[in-house]
């Protein structure tokens, strides 16, 4: 096993609803999707985002799209209208998560 950044396995996109940051992580292929399913856990995602995500993190499978959905609460500094962050709607959370390292065979 070796550590690889998500960038080498998947694409991602993110958006918001209130103070929720919503990530969609899409595997390049079936093999990578199996890795994502194992490696993307609420605990790991929450630890990765450190103080940026203060609330609960939920993870959902979308096998039909080889994708993992991650829903992070209290994750945008209060939400787009209140936050002091430049990235008010958390569109860049998607590219940030691509730095997360996961265990992959090889």
């Amino acid at each position, binding site marked *: 096993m070796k550590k690889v950044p998500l960038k080498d396995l998947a694409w991602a996109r993110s*958006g*918001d*609803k209130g*103070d929720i940051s919503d990530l*969609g*992580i899409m595997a390049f292929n079936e093999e990578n999707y199996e890795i994502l399913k194992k490696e993307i856990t609420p605990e790991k995602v929450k630890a990765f985002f450190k103080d940026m995500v203060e609330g609960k993190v939920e993870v959902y499978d979308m096998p039909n*799209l080889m994708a993992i*959905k991650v829903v992070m609460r209290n994750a945008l500094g209060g939400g787009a209208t*209140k936050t002091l962050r430049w990235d008010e709607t958390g*569109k860049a959370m998607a590219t940030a998560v691509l730095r997360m390292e996961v265990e992959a065979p090889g």
Partner: protein
Amino acid sequence: MKKITLGAGSGYWGVPPDLPLELVQRADLDYLGLELLAELSMSILQRWKNKDPSKGYVPDLIELMKLILPHTLPKGTKIITNGGGVNPRQAAMEIARIIKELKLPPVKIGVIEGDDVFSGLDEMIKKRIELVNLDTGERDIGVIRDRIVAAHAYIGADLIIEALREGADIVIGGRLSDNALYVGPMMHEFGWSFENPDWDKIGAAVTIGHIIECGECVTGGMSNFWKGNPEPWNMGLPIAEVYENGEAVISKTPGSGGQMTVNMVREHLVYETHDPKSYLMPDAVADLTTVRLDQEGEDRVRVSNMTGKKRPDKLKVQIGYDDGYIAEAMFMVTWPEAVKKARLYEEIIMRRLDKFGLKPRETRFEWMGVNCAHGSVAPLPENEDAVNEIGLRAVAKFNTREEAYRARRFAMGGSLILGPVGTGFGAPVPERRVVALWPTLIPREEVHLTLTMMEVK
């Protein structure tokens, strides 16, 4: 099999008008949706209406209608929009004026009102309907009651269907949910109803609506596949050909830039949908985990096997309330030693806030070019000498405009010349008001919707 064609002319307030214009010029649409609202929009529009009762609709709607109507009316394309904002009736009157000015054929406009639940809030509080904040879990709306600017329910397709049944050419409402603009026409045309519902079909309508409602976000905008995305400067808008069996083919403006591939639709099905098994919309709960995508041809994606469940008993309400003021400033510090210079500016600002007794509720420093977008996930530069410049963004939130002004005057804007050599200043940013949102749920029966048909001859 019966088929209808729907186009998404706008997915947000601010769409460049050439995109919807090219869509209606080049495609033969049965319906055009114009989605023009974001979460904060209703509060902004309410404030405008408070100042001038003849305002409160999205101004872009009028600009777009002037361009589009000469093409849509002769083709028989019907338009459904939520650009009426907090004043759909006035927007309808403005549109009627355009139709007369441009000597366009007579039309019927359906005006949907009643999504504004502000005046009913106290009654709901009295009835002990708990207006729990879905973001924070707070239960006592009393703490913000006297600061509320606006309260609107996200409403579904019910009255869009009724307006179309009564022959509306244009349907205009306020906080119609984004995808109700598309669900309405599908349900009307295929005879799908809430009285005798087939939730898989209505779930399919919600899913198709979701795929196209954000406009160019599904045709190549904001995409991971930006490399090799054809002519993004000529981006197309999405089109859904929907069949009565509940399947659809998604394409885009003929002859436009951008792309329509399985990956485009995939990117959008994972976008802002939360739990994908239960994508909650006022018209149905769609299950996005059964959807099947197939590339049917160039720039054509077939979407099938969509399913859904019964619509929720409660409607989401977005309550906007005043929540202080933000002061903001930017300093572009430069090589050599940009990192040290940025840190010194941070110290100057903090010490000057302190000197003038200004106590922000929150303060934040971001370094543009380093960690502005990725926050604490971004790696700090290992070789500080390789950093040519840092845009130090300083932001602080206060309860009053006076404090935010003083922070800008004495500590943030006013301290510019106190720092190191070589700093670029740019144009100053004025302090701004914060409207915070309190999302909550209320029973459907607390929202009293009305439809008014207006004939323009």
